[in-house]
């Protein structure tokens, strides 16, 4: 608890492989604004642009200063960051904010998937990340969407329209594309194929680690494809909790670390 002197703001910038997310919170952990942009090839520029977008969305004045914690693959490119934290810590922190009890967090990002376990105190007890390849990540979905000449934002709707289950067995994105060609030759519908690749992502994630206790899902793939969460729930036979703005969970966690670095919540 601190004595309030002046308005303070805290930013979390999550420079992921695919998207850069920035959010601004106040000293009561309230989300004031956010921005999500493509990370592109210049992480530093992406971080600046996302931060500017979040500041604008939060209606901050130019004179308002923010304490920044950066995370994600490009975390070290944020020269103005007070501190950097890995996305594993930040996602766990962000998730625990919304679900303050022991749980297993499944984060499916652009380049990697993570399974993170937190205890009742919010401390991480372990984590697993996918191995090097794209299977089970957003990059896998992007590649397959490209091969099928589908827009990424159409995948969720298409998967929901599927009427048949198509099994995609390969680990490898290239081999998966070959499998899909075979399914197309057999006359499979595109919607069924898309559901099949969602299932493939789910299978790759499930084989990483046991999903103990309540399950929470975050990440860009979840944010854009809520049907994947529905499929995941069916697969594990349990409900899955998803925070508001699941793509922002890592940035939110980073912003909370920024707030904590300056003494925590102002009551």
């Amino acid at each position, binding site marked *: 608890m601190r004595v309030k002197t002046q308005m303070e703001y805290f930013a979390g910038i999550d420079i992921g492989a695919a998207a850069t997310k920035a959010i601004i919170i106040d000293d009561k952990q309230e989300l004031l604004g956010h921005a999500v942009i493509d990370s592109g090839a210049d992480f530093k520029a992406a971080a600046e642009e996302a931060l500017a977008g979040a500041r604008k969305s939060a209606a901050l004045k130019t004179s308002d200063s923010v304490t920044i914690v950066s995370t994600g693959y490009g975390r070290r490119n944020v020269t103005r960051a007070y501190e950097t*934290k*890995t*996305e*594993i*810590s930040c996602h766990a922190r962000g998730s625990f904010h919304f679900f303050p009890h022991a749980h297993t967090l499944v984060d499916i990002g652009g380049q990697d998937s993570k399974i993170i376990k937190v205890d009742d105190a919010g*401390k991480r007890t372990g984590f697993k990340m996918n191995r090097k390849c794209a299977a089970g990540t957003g990059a896998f979905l992007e590649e397959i969407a490209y091969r099928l000449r589908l827009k990424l934002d159409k995948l969720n709707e298409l998967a929901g329209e599927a009427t048949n289950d198509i099994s995609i067995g390969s680990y490898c994105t290239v081999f998966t594309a070959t499998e899909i060609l075979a399914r197309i030759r057999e006359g499979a519908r595109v919607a069924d194929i898309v559901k099949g690749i969602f299932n493939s992502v789910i299978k790759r994630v499930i084989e990483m680690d046991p999903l103990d206790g309540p399950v929470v899902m975050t990440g860009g793939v979840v944010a854009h494809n809520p049907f994947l969460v529905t499929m995941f729930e069916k697969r594990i036979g349990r409900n899955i909790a998803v925070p508001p703005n699941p793509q922002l969970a890592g940035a939110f966690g980073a912003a909370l670390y920024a707030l904590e670095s300056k003494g925590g919540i102002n009551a």
Partner: protein
Amino acid sequence: MSEEKKVAIKKIQATGQMRKIMADYFYELDAAARDGSQKVAWCTSVGPAELLLSLGFKVYYPENHGAMLGATRLSNDYIPVANAIGYSPDICSYLTSDIGAFIKKETPLSKAYEGIEGVPKPDVLVFNTNQCRDVQDWLSWYSRELNVPLMGISTFRNIGEITDDVLEGIVHQIKALIPPLEKISGNKFDIDKFRESMALSRSCTELWKKVLETNAASPAPMSFFDATIHMGPAVVLRGSETAVQYYELLLAELEQRVKEGVGAVEGEKYRLYWEGMPIWGKLRDLSEFFIGLKTAVIASTYCNSWIFAAFDPADPFLSMARAYTEIFIVRDERFKEKYIEEMIRKFKLDGILFHDSKTCPNNSNNRYGMPERLEKRLNIPTLTINGDLNDLRCYSEEQAKTNIEAFIEQLEAK
């Protein structure tokens, strides 16, 4: 976690002496191979070196060469050459690096040691499969290529208790090597010379053990990454007075560090165990990375693998059989877990880092559920990183470092 800072690795003064004795070793080997003054035996790293030395061979270790290829990051030029002739990218990348380099007629030895043009031509190739089957396949390639005799010892693997039956079988195999080796070397086997080389190896191993055990101190005086370099003489010069003298020098320096409270990692906060092979091409990089994280990686199965406590000059055959069979890599999961548990206690460790080395299954002990079992039983956090000993195509720097950093953040928040 703060920014990754530029950090300096504290130099071990004995390094200069190590470079000198390693240079002498390679020049002597080169001379022997060229002028034929002594026969050259190639030997797998945990093969019957002392027997070969006692028969007057100069002994060369292809695995040491494999590590040099990895550490100089030349491996990735050579691995594809071996892949192209049918040696899979999924098998030992020491083997593929080394064979690829041989086919291209290149070696880091000629860059490090002026005048050396190639690896020393062997007169005999001797293996022990205690490490893996790949060492036999590796030397078999040279045997066919160079028309050089190949012989060795087939060791049982994945064993718990080492029974007399097992040892008798190994003793029998060691003894069976003697007649052909006598013929190749032109020297008669002399048990006293064998005892002598065993005695020197024993002294070397005792000193190497003491060197590694200085890391029980906090802060630990030497990192795992330093140790992988400084174990060179324990591998290639064991059975010699030179190695013994070297480890006396190194031990004195490390004991001095302990006395003065000097650690390899300034402000050591966490202490980790490294299970598995080094990532040779990233030794310096990872060493600096861990220093930046104030984390000391200070104990390992790998460096301990050249401690041969059983060596006994009074009974050289049986004790060699025991020493080369009781090593970690030969043993079952129960033994390995107990061993690591002991290390955790002795070195007061905060976590275990498993390196899943893509092309080295026998040194990747994370693959049969061991990290999960140890976490549960010992309440110690573990982390597995994916990589390889030599094939950097299998290593994702960003993935590995993010995982390590996240692991340290987890320890910090504990």
